[in-house]
């Protein structure tokens, strides 16, 4: 079995890369190959989770350390998640990619392949190479966006800048790791020390940067970049590129010795702030792709929160909570990746069928749009809004349950931190509901509108619907999914865990998720059955209840002519209340400008004004001043050292060389 799995893994990784040259021949061929390769990756991951780790090939001598292509429980989980997403995005791309050139398909394939390298490598040098290739290929993908070139370039540049910042920090983490282990191989370190904390912090910042978490969410580097990309690229970036960041963090934590509890505390703080800010900005976003991108920040924050609880629980020696929070983190990563990919593909569908990504102008699904896509939008946004019994609901419940148990920590400060994080997460969950209701309400729930575009696109809607089905299945079958993910969690823990599932009352054993011992209990399958049973009587009535009593009437618009009723609430208006109420956090300000020339005060001729309500990220102010400071310093240095006086310049070089020499001498 392991031989088969090894071959499958090799074939799938080669297949992901093979999409690139094949795409030059034919875009569709390229996507089809990545589709098949993704399927193989999922199959491999399932085999690994079921039967144990597998090594496809290993070699040595090329680089300093032996290297192999390997999937263990942890990487198999991430490969499984990514593979599921890629099946959907590749199938979607078959019909979506209408570019004149094959380069989007090539970059897409390279991105997938390099993420696979990141997931399968056992050597940090290869990992870093894959990480860098992933960043560059994604950069290329964003560049391939259609639309205004200036915006695309700036979005891609922002992405690259933050991506390279991430690479730098990850390289720092790896260098610190090397100084501890003496090698680049992914082998566990046993000795704890201050440098392990350096590895942890550098890794958290480096991988966190990729995940878009606070304070690196900046004003929207991730939303700008992810929403500017083509939709298939957005889906890959937002769900699997950030997933690679999650994987990197998880992988490094498995290699580090058990850290102090402040590691978890740091994760809690960063995660909770990210979740809150991400949700807040999602709620005030008007962009059909920007909104899901902000939601990505929120979800990645939730992953960190769950991981933080797990780390604290491990440090505080609360094994049941550790296991539960860890499972919550894994399930959240899985649920988010699949759901977010679906939502981005939905945004692509909306863009294709209505010609806009501005929620103010989308205003309803096109007349005759296929029900599959509408249903998928419904499922994906409900799942992100934590609607039962979908995947997002289960993960949100698990994370909150884990936070509720912060009373099990022995240190009061940590208990309090858990409470604060719980409040922030709950608030974020509420804000996300606003965002998702907006997304849902201004697309599929709105009155259908006539467009000149062809709404029925089975090639687009089928993959979306398939992914939506996965979301439902993940939620309903979550107890079994959790059991299936046990090898992944056990790899992380370093010892064998059991999934937090049980039974209670009439619910059979294994049907319920149990937190604590037992603290809270939830049975998504039973909930799903109850929901379906509840739907049966009305469905029977509708099916056999005789002719419907319908009476068509004109739309009532408070007694005025319907022409006035055409004016409808904008999605901007839907969240303005939040912009105004939270103006302290959002930095809301109104800009009012005279639209025309000033005219004399006349009652009969109204003066025209333009009004704009802008929101601003508080962190952006910090970054802007950092940028200004850096520019000022560089400028000053340039003026002081560079020009004219060769002597001064030589002195500068001499001083630097001396400093480096002294440092090296001291270090040795």
């Amino acid at each position: 079995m392991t031989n088969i799995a090894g071959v499958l893994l090799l074939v799938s990784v080669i297949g992901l890369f093979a999409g690139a040259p094949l795409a030059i021949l034919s875009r569709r061929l390229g996507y089809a190959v990545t589709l098949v390769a993704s399927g193989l990756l999922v199959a491999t991951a399932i085999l690994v989770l079921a039967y144990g780790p597998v090594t496809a090939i290993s070699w040595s001598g090329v680089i300093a350390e032996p290297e192999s292509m390997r999937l263990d429980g942890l990487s198999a989980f991430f490969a499984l998640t990514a593979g599921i997403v890629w099946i959907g995005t590749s199938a979607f791309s078959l019909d979506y990619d209408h570019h004149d050139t094959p380069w989007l398909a090539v970059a897409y394939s390279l991105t997938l392949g390099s993420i696979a390298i990141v997931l399968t490598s056992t050597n940090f040098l290869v990992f870093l190479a894959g990480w860098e290739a992933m960043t560059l290929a994604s950069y290329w993908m964003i560049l391939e966006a259609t639309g205004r070139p200036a915006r695309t370039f700036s979005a891609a540049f922002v992405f690259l800048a933050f991506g390279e910042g991430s690479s730098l920090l990850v390289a720092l983490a790896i260098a610190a790791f090397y100084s501890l282990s003496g090698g680049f191989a992914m082998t566990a370190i046993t000795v704890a020390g201050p440098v392990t904390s350096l590895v942890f912090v550098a890794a958290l910042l480096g991988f966190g940067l990729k995940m878009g978490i606070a304070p690196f969410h900046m004003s929207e580097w991730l939303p700008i970049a992810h929403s500017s990309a083509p939709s298939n690229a957005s889906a890959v970036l937002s769900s699997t590129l950030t997933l690679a960041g999650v994987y990197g963090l998880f992988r490094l934590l498995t290699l580090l010795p058990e850290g102090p509890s402040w590691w978890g505390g740091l994760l809690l703080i960063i995660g909770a702030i990210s979740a809150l800010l991400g949700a807040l900005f999602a709620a005030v976003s008007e962009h059909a792709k920007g909104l899901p991108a902000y939601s990505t920040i929120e979800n990645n924050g939730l992953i960190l929160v769950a991981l933080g609880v797990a780390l604290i629980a491990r440090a505080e020696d609360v094994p049941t909570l550790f296991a539960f929070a860890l499972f919550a983190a894994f399930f959240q990563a899985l649920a988010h990746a699949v759901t977010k990919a679906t939502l981005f593909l939905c945004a692509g569908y909306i863009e294709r069928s209505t010609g806009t990504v501005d929620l103010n102008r989308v205003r309803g699904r096109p007349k005759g749009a296929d029900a599959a896509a509408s249903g998928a939008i419904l499922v994906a946004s409900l799942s992100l809004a934590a609607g039962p019994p979908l995947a997002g609901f289960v993960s949100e419940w698990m994370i909150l349950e884990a936070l509720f148990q912060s009373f099990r920590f022995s240190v009061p400060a940590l208990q309090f931190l858990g409470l604060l994080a719980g409040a922030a997460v709950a608030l974020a969950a509420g804000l996300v509901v606003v965002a998702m209701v907006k997304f849902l309400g201004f697309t599929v729930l709105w009155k259908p509108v006539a467009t000149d575009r062809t709404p029925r696109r089975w090639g687009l809607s089928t993959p979306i619907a398939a992914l939506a089905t996965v979301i439902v299945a993940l939620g309903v079958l979550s107890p079994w999914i959790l059991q299936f993910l046990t090898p992944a969690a056990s790899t992380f823990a370093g010892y064998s865990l059991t999934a937090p599932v049980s039974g209670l009352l009439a619910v059979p054993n294994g049907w319920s998720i149990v937190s604590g011992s037992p603290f809270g209990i939830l049975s998504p399958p039973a909930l799903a059955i109850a929901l379906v049973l509840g739907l049966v009587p009305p469905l029977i009535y509708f099916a056999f209840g005789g002719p419907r009593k319908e009476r068509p009437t004109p739309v009532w618009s408070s007694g005025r002519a319907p022409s006035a009723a055409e004016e409808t609430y904008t999605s901007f208006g839907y969240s303005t209340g939040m912009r105004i109420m939270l103006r302290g956090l959002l930095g809301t300000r109104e800009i009012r400008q005279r639209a025309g020339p000033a005219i004399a005060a006349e009652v009969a001729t109204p003066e025209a004004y333009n009004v704009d309500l802008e929101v601003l990220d508080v962190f952006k102010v910090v970054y802007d001043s950092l940028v200004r400071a850096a520019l000022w310093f560089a400028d000053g240095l340039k003026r002081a050292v560079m020009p004219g006086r060769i002597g001064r310049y030589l002195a500068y070089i001499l001083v630097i060389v001396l400093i480096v020499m002294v440092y090296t001498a001291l270090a040795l």
Partner: protein
Amino acid sequence: MSAPPPAGGSVPARALTYVDAERTLALRTDYERKETIFERPPELSSEDLGLVEHWQARGRPHRLPVGESVEGYGVFTFPYGPVTMGVPESGAFDIRTYGERVLELVPEVGYKSRRIASAVVGRVPADALLRVERFAGNFSASHAAAFLGAVEVANGIRVPEEELWTRALAQELQRVYNHVRLIARVAEAASQNVGLAQAHALAEESLRLMARTFGHRWAFGAFAPGNRFRRLGPDDRRALGERLRAYDREFASLWELFLGSRTFIDRIQSTALVSRADAIRWGAVGPTLRASGVAWDDRLRAPSPPYTDLFVPLAQGSEGDALARVLVREEEVRSSLLLVEQMLDRWTSVRGGEYVPRPPVEPGRGIVRLEAPSGDLVYDVRLADGRVAALGVRTPSQVNWPLFALGMRGAVFTDFHFALESFGLAFADTDG
């Protein structure tokens, strides 16, 4: 504000008060010199014309001009009314907004038009009175008194002074009713349920006093010649006086209750601000004008009996917000009760006297302005052969709508009801 002040840097303290349908005669109020000016022929600026068009565009739904149009990202029009919760009468508003905040508000009036001004043409005054009284039920006494006054001026007939005192009594009682009811409605908008119930009870009490004294809750037919239901004998006056003293006490304790409620005050303070300059420029009248710091009350500045013989306190505010308007009305409840008390005290001394109206502006034409509960009301009656030949009316609600629209700019939706109620506007009064 929408417009820069005209050349010279300051807003002239003059406002257009009335223009007749042919635009041959205009009434202006000079707030600096405290006098009314007749202009013939009138010099109408384009700004004046905008107002005049709206005053005279009766009989069809039309949007009131308020001087701005707002565009922007996410900005849309929120249609509100005419048949919807929260709009007490048939009238509508187009609210330009990007959600939550009112950027621009355009009232749409005319749904309640009954064409009363043209319906009375060709009728004898007694007949016309029946229709004029029904212009706006809660201002009926003012409309009737203004109409009758204008007819008397046009005819140059002497009026028994007791008749004038009766009209004033009815007007003051109705003012009490209107102001108390307005306070009740503001309380309702602020969910002050105890105060709301008490204020409504007091308003109902004033209606019953009106019914006992004049035979009708809205004083319909009260001033008709030979009204058999009027009860103003010595015993009736004594009973009314006693009842009103109790009323005064009850109102004072109720008002104390309101003043003690931070939520009530908070919600109306700084809501729907009307600056003094705006109030004058757009010709605001009544409590709206006085709350913005302009000391003008027709009972003081253009008085006719009995106000010439009575002590009339002037209620005035300076903040121009909803609280100031409510405070002005609260003071006016007191002053009206005081006026009624003075009238009842001195009733016997006026018996038998006769009042000669001022000379008409032209033969057969009478123009009367008087202080209705919501502000200055102008009636312009032309008579021919003892019948009404033409009727021009300019009601306080017509004038004050633009001020409401201006005051609402920048307010949030939830301010709407406090703001609307604080102006005491009535669609019936606007549409006619």
